[in-house]
């Protein structure tokens, strides 16, 4: 199944990544080659094989419910592109009501 420029554009939307039409057109065949080369994993991935999501079989790593020092608001905001009143200032949020 070939990946089209439209597919790339849809995926770019999900990834919040602005791509030009030219980029989508260029990426589609590149990604297609990569995807077809990795297609073989499905062939060996039998149903009875568990997924390995972690490199080590650790469980129950937890910390006690203890408050530790936070950053100061100045430190927290130090890298922000824009701030106002001790808060991060961001452009208007469209597309959802709240």
């Amino acid at each position: 199944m070939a990946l089209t420029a439209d597919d790339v554009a849809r995926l770019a939307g999900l990834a919040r990544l602005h791509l030009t039409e030219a980029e989508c057109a260029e990426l589609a065949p590149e990604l297609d080659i990569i995807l077809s080369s990795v297609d073989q994993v499905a062939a060996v991935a039998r149903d009875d094989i568990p997924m390995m999501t972690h490199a080590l079989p650790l469980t129950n790593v937890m910390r006690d419910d203890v408050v530790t020092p936070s950053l100061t608001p100045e430190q927290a905001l130090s890298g922000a592109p824009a701030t106002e009143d001790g808060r991060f200032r961001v452009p208007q949020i469209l597309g959802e009501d709240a």
Partner: protein
Amino acid sequence: MTEILDYDDVLESFDPAIGLEVHVELSTASKMFCGCSTTFGAEPNSQTCPVCLGLPGSLPVVNAKAVESAIRIGLALNCQIAPWGRFARKNYFYPDMTKNFQTSQYDEPIAHDGWVDLEVEGEMFRIEVERAHMEEDAGKLTHVGTSGRIHGAEYSLLDYNRAGTPLIEIVTRPILGTGAKAPQVAKAYVSHLRDLMRALKVSDVRMEHGSLRCDANISLAHKGAQELGIRTETKNVNSLRSVERAITFEMRRQGALLLDGGRVKQETRHFDEATGTTRSGRSKEEAQDYRYFAEPDLVPIAPSAEWIEELRATLPEQPVARRKRLATEWDADELAMRDIVAVGAMDMIEETVAAGAPPQAARKWWVGELARRANEGGVELEELPITPRDVAEVCALVVSGELNDKLARQVFEGVLAGEGSAREVVDARGLAIVSDDGALKEAVDKAIAANPDVAARIRDGKHQAIGALIGQVMKAMRGQADAGRVRELVLEELG
């Protein structure tokens, strides 16, 4: 203007199905995945760190207390506790979420397949709990612009103090067969959860602070249909009353649409407290693709059977069982218990009785006098500046005959006015009943002398006239007399 149908007409043609997703903010000291404080109302962005700000390189570590709370909630909801489960990333972009994925649980929730039994107006309902899972809260957005709402906002400001606060999301299976009682059942369920969380001491469940939030899924199916109808998800349902109103409104709105041959659109809707209506939000026609996968930065949680049993032993009495027990102990009938629940006096009465007061008296004061005063002041009963110990003290004074009910009310007034403890108010206001027979006798003699005709009637055996003399004496004593003792003295003189 949205068309709506009469509630009765909705029920004539349709069966409602409801589903509730309740988010409970846990009252842990620190956040879900970092050591920042969860205290409400701090200076913006003063309770943040690389982890909850989602700074590059930061890594989460699970708060053990949050896991413990999740397990206890699961057990209290009669759930199975998963012996092994991973966290998952729910990927979607929104500026209030610092990593642009929410660390949550997906197909391996810590608790699943539970139930809750509810009684609504004498009828029992079993609510099936599909799952309860752990996740984290988002930051707080403030929209700056002309309207203060998103539309028309010029920009937004973000405070991430709340980001990463532990949440438990409790999801029911579709609740069927509730008919006309659907809104009340939903309300009773949320109310039950609130009581349960309070009893478990895992959350302060203040709906007005958003520490308990409810999303309601509602659909209508034509009577007799096998399949559920298309549902809407109503958000912002943040008070018990709103749960009832939002569901009622959605049933009526969907009913009008369907009867008109229309189709319900699967969407998110927002409840407007002011108008009691819902309005369309983001369209869910194109379903979100959250691209869930197991969180590689956290290892699985595998609670041992011993730990689960240890936690089970810490569970408080279930609200239904407790209510039954207290009804017996207090000799209260169903109607009386309903009044107690309605004014939220259960805990206060229990504590007052524990402090030595007779149940009857404790109930009387909390449901009557004190509930009335709370209502007048527009506050919750427990917010009144009077403790169960104060009330028990007053009850004891009544029992010992030092106070009568009328004086007791004055004592309450004094305590509520901040004049001190019950004892202090009694002393300061000089409210004790006069038990000195000498003073009382004097007043009785005066009253007899002043009312010879009444005295004559009493001498003639017409004891119903005695009330007039008692009234005179009580007036003379400014209410600080035991009416029973006065009666005895009058009869001694005239009997």
